[in-house]
């Protein structure tokens, strides 16, 4: 099977997954105990006119599959309903919070690239020496530390204690400034939550960079290059790292989910107005339309991220078998 066929099959495979997610998300409302009208309308808006309007929109009297279809048609057109608590369109809220989350993720990914790739490569080159063991141990810590606690500790040390010692915190204890307002203030605020989020991700990436590099460095062409007298640094970086990059990039893509899990708690700890915090607030408010919208959106992003990674991987690596 050629690449085009593989790509087509892979793209088509996302359809049942997305449909499945949408069915699950739709059924969330049905699982919630109580009258859906009460779950979707705040008490002060439960006037007969609003209730009738909502019932008509949801098609409540109709069979479940008709209701689902109506909801899906709206969702596909970008209409995810109105937030129960915030009284604004869900799509608008998500788009507004998307950018702050993206900023944190970018800093986290940058942290991961700067820390994880050099340490991962070093670990592989000096495999089973103290360098490797030390890196491995540090990476274990990075994976095992809960992001929310790390965030609290970072605030405690670099903002609160630092403030006590030197009169002014090294970093603010949280909050958000738009980069368009003041780039410097923004950078000052994004750095701590971004790195906090990046720690676990870096550790994960370092471990996977190491194993990818170890595998590549065992390949025959590396031996061939060495036997031809190519300098070791050139062998490692040019021949080794270049080839290990494919699995590393893949892994970065696959673990975006890990990053998003972290961003929920990190945004909460640092009062960062991103999607994670929006989801948390919507859960506290039992704001079902917003919960539904965010899950659908996030799942959609991940399905497409995985799709992109798979397609790229298959495209870049000619050895892969399309099955």
């Amino acid at each position, binding site marked *: 099977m050629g690449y085009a066929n593989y790509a087509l099959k892979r793209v088509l495979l996302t359809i049942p*997954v997305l449909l499945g997610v949408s069915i699950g998300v739709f059924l969330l409302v049905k*699982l919630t105990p109580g009258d859906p009208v009460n779950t979707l309308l705040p008490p002060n808006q439960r006037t007969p006119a609003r209730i009738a309007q909502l019932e008509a929109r949801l098609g409540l009297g109709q069979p479940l599959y008709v209701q689902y279809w109506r909801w899906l048609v709206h969702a596909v057109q970008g209409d995810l309903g109105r937030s129960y608590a915030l009284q604004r369109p869900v799509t608008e809220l998500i788009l507004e919070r998307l950018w702050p989350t993206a900023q944190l993720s970018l800093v986290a990914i940058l942290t991961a690239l700067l820390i994880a790739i050099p340490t991962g490569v070093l670990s592989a080159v000096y495999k089973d020496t103290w360098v490797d063991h030390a890196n491995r141990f540090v990476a274990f*810590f990075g994976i095992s530390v809960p992001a929310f606690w790390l965030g609290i500790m970072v605030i405690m040390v670099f903002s609160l*204690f630092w403030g006590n010692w030197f009169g002014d915190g090294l970093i603010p204890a949280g909050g958000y400034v738009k980069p368009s307002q003041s780039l410097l203030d923004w950078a000052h605020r994004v750095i701590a939550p971004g790195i906090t989020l990046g720690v676990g991700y870096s550790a994960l990436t370092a471990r996977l960079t190491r194993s990818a590099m170890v595998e590549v460095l065992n390949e025959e062409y590396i031996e061939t290059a060495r036997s031809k007298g190519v300098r070791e640094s050139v062998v490692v970086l040019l021949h080794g790292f270049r080839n290990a990059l494919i699995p590393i990039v893949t892994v970065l893509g696959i673990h975006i989910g890990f990053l998003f899990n972290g961003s929920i708690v990190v945004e909460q700890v640092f009062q960062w107005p991103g999607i994670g915090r929006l989801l948390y607030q*919507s859960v506290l408010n039992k704001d*079902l339309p917003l*919960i539904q919208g965010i*899950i659908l959106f996030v799942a959609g992003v991940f399905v497409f991220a995985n799709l992109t990674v798979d397609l790229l991987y298959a495209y870049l690596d000619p050895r892969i078998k399309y099955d």
Partner: protein
Amino acid sequence: MTEQHHDGRHGDGRLSVLRRALALYGRLDTGAQLSLWIVVGVITMAIAAPVLAPYDPAAQDYEASLSGPSMEHPLGTDLTGRDILSRLIFGTRASLKVGLVAVGMAIAVGVPLGSFAGYVGGWTDEVIMRAMDVVISIPALVLGLAIVGTLGAGLINVIAVVAIVYSPQYARLIRGSVLSEKEEEYVTAAENTGLRDTSILVKHILPNAMTPVLVQATYHVATAIILEASLSFLGLGVQPPTPTWGVMISSGRQYLPAEWWISTFPGLAIMVTVLAFNILGDGLRDEFDPRSVTGQEGGA
């Protein structure tokens, strides 16, 4: 239909399991051995919490309110004067319940689904595995928040969350193993002797496919503990007054930085426990998966 020839070993079965476990322990590297002891220690704490804890975890002592680490309270006290060390020891219970019970449930759901899908193949396989893809496509904590947000907070729901979130990974893992084992000669031989599909699956294929499941489970216990702590920290997990590490961290936040011990120690407890499960998982993987064995000098 039961096959008797396996029972020949049953006489010294227990002994050989113990002997094999000891041999396995001997082959683990120092880090993994140490981690195993930490895991055993944490499990002991959970079981023997009432004996080990110096105080009742719920006992309030307003005179000792917010006192720092001392001989009397080695890890200090919280606002109502409850002993942090005792709450930490009792907190192992919630973490391990979620870690062990929920991951066990994930295996109990995922393994039958995945092996069935892999063995039967065809449309059944497609439907089951696409359903698993749906669950995997949503990040764990997002799914957790959605489920807990809909069904309500509490230990049972957190366990349900973990079981739902992780079961697809076991289904995928075991399906892959079943697919490759299916081609092995011994399976064909068993089929030729007229054994039924289910007994081939249960007696021959699954035992061979369970090792990666065990390794995966060790890692999952680690991430499940973090997931539980995160949900508890957000106020959506196990509810107070039950002592849990996540709730302890969150309740101590408002007393930072002066009363730093309230949030710091439970976080360290999570980190050490999770670290132990992760290192143990790596040790087991190195032991069972020959591709990743680092060589004879590979001890840490």
